[in-house]
């Protein structure tokens, strides 16, 4: 089986990750549901992971893949805390809308 | 090259068929054993000793009316059981069913894919198994189903941790994540160098976690009839329900196979290399040995089901978090110490 790194140019992967990354950014900027925003952030992190793995494989350097491993670990920790925060907020307000809190305070 | 591919296709087909048949007859066996444990006969009308009962059940499920609740999300409602079935069948790809057989000088391993990270693959697929339950339970739009789905999710997440930890202790001894290599390592001492001897605690934890992951009694809270009217599959009928039930039995079969492979020597059987038989015969006998081990495990699953009562929810959580996880960590520490000592 011929490896993909001999056929597809690296630029294709750079552009693919850039596209996914920007979709994530747009998601963060346009949605109001905290969980969806958070999922968009996960999308961004995955774009980063993909790009790191691509760089690492194309240059034959394992460091990049180890970094991906760390990003995954951090993402897992962030998810645990983030969802706890969202649950806490839902308990108090009954909603996960990020703009609602401003209204409640005033 | 072509013979390899043809052989792989035959292998896949026969594994798939075997798991289906085993699952089918597990249902009959379960009812028979239930009858035995409760001092009654069990099914005995369809065919001699009720042997055609699974076929009759299948026919019944296939011909029953399809009911999809009006308020349910149709696509997800259908996706739930399909996902459950899919994840149940995926694991069998990395299990080594036997050594290899020789045809025309070709060595044909009895394993669909010997991937480098076999155990991780099994673990990953097991952790995906919860999606079938969750999506089905949510899509039904029924509070009992939702409760069952949430219970299923939290139970699976909780027990996955100790399962992973017990696997880590095993991997520390084997130094490999490939299922085939782990099985081959157990062929020493006349085919009886099984890892259950070195990892008794790890095996016990793994066993309990497999019960929880397959939602079998005493961990069948996601579907308990008395409180949740069937849990996540309350709203399901006909073959969709059949898929859920079937997936449970396939899961039981597969987790038995994984346990047999990891801890009970897989296709190794005592004195396998001392009998002086040809390679093909040894391979076939090995497959037979593996299946005997699997069937024993399946019997154990049923034995437990008809003996032990169901846990309460808080007991389930306490067992997972306060007993199994510390035990699994202790197991890792002991294993690490022993491995270092003998290095």
């Amino acid at each position, binding site marked *: 089986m011929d490896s993909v790194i001999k056929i597809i140019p690296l630029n294709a992967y*750079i552009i693919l990750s850039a596209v996914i990354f920007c979709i994530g950014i747009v998601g963060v900027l346009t949605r109001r549901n905290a969980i969806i925003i958070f999922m968009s952030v996960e999308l961004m992190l995955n774009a980063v992971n993909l790009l790191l793995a691509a760089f690492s494989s194309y240059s034959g350097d394992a460091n990049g893949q180890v970094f991906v491993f760390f990003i995954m670990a951090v993402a897992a920790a962030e998810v645990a805390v983030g969802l*706890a925060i969202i649950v806490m907020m839902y308990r108090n307000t009954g909603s996960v809308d990020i703009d609602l809190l401003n209204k409640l305070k005033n | 090259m072509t013979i390899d591919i043809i052989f792989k296709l035959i292998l896949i087909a026969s594994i798939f068929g075997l798991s289906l048949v085993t699952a089918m007859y597990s249902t009959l066996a379960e009812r028979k054993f239930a009858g035995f444990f409760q001092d009654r006969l069990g099914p005995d009308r369809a065919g001699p000793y009720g042997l055609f009962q699974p076929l009759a059940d299948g026919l019944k499920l296939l011909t029953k009316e399809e009911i999809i609740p009006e308020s349910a999300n149709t696509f997800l409602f259908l996706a739930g059981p399909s996902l459950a079935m899919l994840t149940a069948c995926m694991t069998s790809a990395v299990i080594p069913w036997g050594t290899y057989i020789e045809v025309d000088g070709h060595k044909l391993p009895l394993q669909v894919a010997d991937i480098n990270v076999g155990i991780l693959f099994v673990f990953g697929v097991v952790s995906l198994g*919860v999606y079938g339950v969750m999506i089905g339970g949510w899509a039904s739009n029924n509070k009992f189903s939702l409760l069952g789905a949430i219970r299923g999710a939290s139970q699976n997440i909780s027990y996955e941790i100790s399962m992973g930890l017990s696997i880590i202790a095993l991997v520390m001894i084997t130094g490999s994540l490939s299922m085939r290599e782990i099985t081959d390592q157990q062929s020493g001492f006349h085919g009886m160098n099984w890892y259950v001897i070195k990892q008794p605690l790890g095996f016990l934890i793994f066993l309990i976690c497999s019960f929880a992951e397959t939602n079998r009694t005493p961990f069948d809270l996601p579907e308990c009839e008395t409180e949740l009217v069937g849990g996540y599959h309350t709203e399901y009928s006909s073959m969709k329900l059949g898929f859920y039930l079937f997936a449970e039995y396939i899961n039981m079969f597969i987790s038995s196979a994984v346990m047999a492979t990891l801890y009970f020597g897989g296709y190794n059987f005592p004195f396998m290399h001392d009998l002086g038989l040809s390679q093909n015969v040894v391979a076939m006998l090995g497959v037979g040995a593996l299946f005997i081990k699997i069937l024993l495990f399946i019997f154990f699953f049923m034995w437990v089901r008809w003996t032990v009562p169901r846990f309460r929810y808080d007991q389930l959580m306490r067992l997972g978090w306060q007993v199994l996880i510390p035990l699994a960590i202790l197991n890792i520490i002991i294993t690490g110490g022993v491995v270092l000592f003998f290095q």
Partner: protein
Amino acid sequence: MDKMFYFLAFLAILSALMVVLVKNPIHSILYLLVTFTSITGHYILFNAQFLAAVNFIVYMGAIMVLFLFVIMFLNLNGETEPQKSTLVKFAGVISGGLLLLVMVASFKKAVTIPLNTEVDTQIGLIKNLGMVLFKDYALPFELASVLFLVAMIGAVMLAKKDWK
């Protein structure tokens, strides 16, 4: 192989778009799951087996289950989500699009590593990665455990109901 790449790339982008576009959070999660699956596919194409397995277990098996769990737990329905004003949405899309434009424009000629070099395709195997991880990256690995401890404290502190 190149067909595989294009198929997976197309799938990843399409489902990533759907994550952001659909209203129902549950559907978003399922589309995100598809994105992760296709990214796992890319890892397999790289022969990065360990990453593929970990992506499977961590992202699909743990993180997304948690998301799904929380959404079901809170019983959020897509129809009730208030929308941002069109202006904000427009601005968000424009800024994201601009960033994409700048990135793609500059990446187009950014060939950093020449194609077809004889690189080691075995680096993604678990033995190799384990060596790098536990020799060079031992300190960050240990610090990651501190991070998990923090996350554990946080989850218990914030999500549990107070006792008096």
